């Protein structure tokens, strides 16, 4: 079972890839840098479950916090506004 590699507060970058298949990492967040808000736990991989496989071993899932101004170049709002997205570990790299 894959170990949880990241800790809350750690800076991570979302892999900038556009693969085919069932993906739960939204298009808009790929390539963005954020910080780990928490480890949610480990869950079967939805990309594999979608293909009628069992998605095991469970993969670590994190809530990752991004500053809106760093996600959208034209973001108009507070500099402190954030966007929190659940992302599986295999989509994350140390930033």
């Amino acid at each position, binding site marked *: 079972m894959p170990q949880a590699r990241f800790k809350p507060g750690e800076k991570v970058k979302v892999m900038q890839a*556009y693969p*085919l*298949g*069932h*993906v739960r990492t*939204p*298009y*808009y*967040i790929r390539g963005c840098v954020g910080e780990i808000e928490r480890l949610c736990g480990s869950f079967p991989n*939805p990309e594999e*479950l*979608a*293909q*009628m496989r069992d*998605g095991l071993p469970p993969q670590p899932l994190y809530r990752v916090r991004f500053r809106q101004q760093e*996600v*959208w170049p034209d973001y108009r709002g507070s500099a402190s506004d954030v966007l929190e997205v659940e992302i599986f570990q295999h989509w994350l790299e140390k930033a």
Partner: protein
Amino acid sequence: MIPRSHHDMGGLPAGKVERTEHDHAEWERRVDALAVLMGARKVTVDERRKNIEALPPEDYERMSYYERWIVSLAQSLLQRGVVTTEELARKMIEVERRAAG
């Protein structure tokens, strides 16, 4: 649409949110129930989502929420071999005949 799937719409330009609500029809509630029951029998929400995402964009847009669900559930059951296309066809004809009274 490759590489960005039609359902993956976060951040795209869009219009004002229409605050529509509707009382769900019985058939829609039964679709919901079937999806939950089949989920307990290992037909995962992930498979159903994959099948919804595979709908042609025009169908995705014009179909209502539960219309997408029932189609994706049917596709999932076909993929798993729980039902066959022939079984669907024969049953659909039977149901239509019965409904026409």
